[in-house]
């Protein structure tokens, strides 16, 4: 075990995989000489050289398209999009090409690539450095979408993503990069994609969330515990595929689901979870399914702590649910 920040855990996963497998290459804007604007690729250029760590032109569509070509031709590329807000420059590549690649060529060529992108708010980043665009991609067959929330998961899930035979979009909650540290297993360490993490056990209300809001959910759970409400918190860790077993087990126990994410409410991933709970577990419910999310506005620069699903908003939703 070594104490690592989230950013260092990403760096450790990349280094570990690049040492283990020479097919793994890294490309993106400022990932080489500069080591990435969040320092996630620091030191990789020195260790692995310019053939495996490529500073690219400022060209999101080419970064994603080139990564796909590398993947189709036997490499294991990990491309970085500097902010998930800039991923839309490569949206067509992701949706029309990467996602449909295996299907279009009926398995003749595969697309084992990872697109890493910092996601989410809480860093005073304004509308183009704070967005949570995951739903655009969870609505596209052929992609996997992963959002880790701890340094250990960041390492274990990124290694799994690199070894996965399909394209994975790997969203890294940027406000966690340097704000927390924990013991991370050394060496070989994987976390399976598609398995949720039970963050906290409880019996009255289930909070289902992912990414940075896991911490807000835990803080809210601790607060309402003083009022006698016992809250279970589930960190989904990956959205496609998602761990329905973990959700249904908990909802059967509590009957009171509250879904939390930073992305805007309408058509957010929470709608998918809510609909599936309604389809399959309606008779387990003791209270309406509630959502605490970003609002349907562009991400605001000012008052972002009010816009985000913060501890108070989550605690209020838990109280509302428990009152039923």
């Amino acid at each position, binding site marked *: 075990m070594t104490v690592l920040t989230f950013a260092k855990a990403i760096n450790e996963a990349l280094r570990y995989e690049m040492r283990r497998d020479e097919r793994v290459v890294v490309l993106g804007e400022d990932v080489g000489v500069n080591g990435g604007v969040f320092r996630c690729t620091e030191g990789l250029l020195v260790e692995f050289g310019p053939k495996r760590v490529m500073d690219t*032109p400022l060209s999101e569509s080419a970064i994603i*398209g*080139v990564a796909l070509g590398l993947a189709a*031709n036997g490499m294991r590329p990990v491309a970085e999009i500097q902010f998930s807000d800039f991923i839309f420059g490569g949206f067509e590549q992701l949706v029309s090409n990467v996602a449909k690649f295996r299907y*279009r060529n*009926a398995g003749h060529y595969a697309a084992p690539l990872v697109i890493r992108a910092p996601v989410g708010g809480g860093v005073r980043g304004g509308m183009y450095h704070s967005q949570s665009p995951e739903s655009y991609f969870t609505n596209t067959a052929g992609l*996997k979408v992963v959002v880790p929330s701890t340094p250990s998961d960041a390492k274990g899930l990124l290694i799994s993503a690199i070894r996965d035979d*399909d394209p994975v979009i790997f969203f890294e909650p940027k406000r966690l990069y340097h704000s927390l540290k924990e013991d991370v297993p050394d060496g070989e360490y994987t976390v399976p994609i*598609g398995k949720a993490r039970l963050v906290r056990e409880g019996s009255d209300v289930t909070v289902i969330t992912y990414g940075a809001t896991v911490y807000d959910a835990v803080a809210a759970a601790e607060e309402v515990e003083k009022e006698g409400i016992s809250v279970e918190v589930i960190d989904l860790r990956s959205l496609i595929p998602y761990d329905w077993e973990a959700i249904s087990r908990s909802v059967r126990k509590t009957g009171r689901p509250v879904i939390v994410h930073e992305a805007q409410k309408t058509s957010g991933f929470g709608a998918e979870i809510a609909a599936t709970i309604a389809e399959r577990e309606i008779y387990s419910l003791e209270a309406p399914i509630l959502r605490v999310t970003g609002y349907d506005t562009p991400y605001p620069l000012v008052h972002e702590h009010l816009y985000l699903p913060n501890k108070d908003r989550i605690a209020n939703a838990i109280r509302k649910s428990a009152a039923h």
Partner: protein
Amino acid sequence: MRGWWEFITILGKRRPPDPEDLGLERELLMRMYRLLVLTRALDRYLLRLQRMGKVALYAESLGEEAAMVGSALALRPEDVVFPSYRELGVYLTRGVPISEILDRQLNTVDDPLKGHEFAVFGDSRFNIVPAPTPVATQIPVAVGYALAFKIRGERRLAVTYFGDGATSKGDFHEGINFASVYKPPIVFICLNNQYAISTHVSRQTGAATIAQKAIAYGLSGYRVDGNDAIAMYLVSRSVFEEVREGGDPVLIEAVTYRLGAHTTSDDPKRYRSEEEVRYWMERDPIERMRSYLISKNVMGEEEDKALWAEVEALVSAEVEKALAKPGLDPMVIFEDVYAEPTPQLREQMEEFRQQLRMERVMRG
């Protein structure tokens, strides 16, 4: 030195040089001509099959055969092709059997792409990566594919084909720009057939040529007579050789003309004149090659007639066979989404299986 400012043609010259002066042997010229004829014959059949309702949509190659066949003949089997959606002549030149192209177009049980998409063709056995329909999106992917060759030190080449319309898209510029920095072994071939559906190339760019766009990226561009299989072959051969040996990426503009419609859903009479079409009919790439071979005594009239008859009979026999094949199982629609289906997809597959069972029961 050659460059984009020169229009490279052989058959377009008033007195084309003899095959010996070009260093071309009879066997190669006859192979080239047979591929041109085969492309045209199969193209006609596919168009007919679409009209019969057997093929969902078809994009004709009529008029562009020389640009396809001439360039693809200069490739090696280990080189990799990223076509667009109209390169029938490229597939045939790569050695793809007629039967497989028919399986693909008719979506028979042997369709190599399992009916997942129409019009496009691809098969890893022939190093052809199937195209996406969104125009130009194959270009950056081809660059990445070539980059892997460079990283591993393999002397192989990626070639990507696209139309004049594609040069207006960001992916053309992003792809060629990326290639100009990392210099992987790639050749960009623009089949400038002068129309993107109804829009003339003069509405795609204010530049006089497509080839000159290479200059801004620090690369070479060549402008070639795309209705001249020999010119296309000779230029491609020397460019491919150079790039395979570590030369910079190159852009080749093949100036040709789409004699047919954009696809079977298009009516070109709405946007171009008969005179214009007649002008290009007179420069039909196959007729040009035919008269060259006859005038240079490479081939006789009788031999030509026999070749056409042989090819027509071959294609028509293959069409008969393909039409008799059964179609694909409905469950194929769930295949190849992921290496392993997700739990969510597995559940939907089960739902679909039950839907199929119900339908069978309803039909009795």
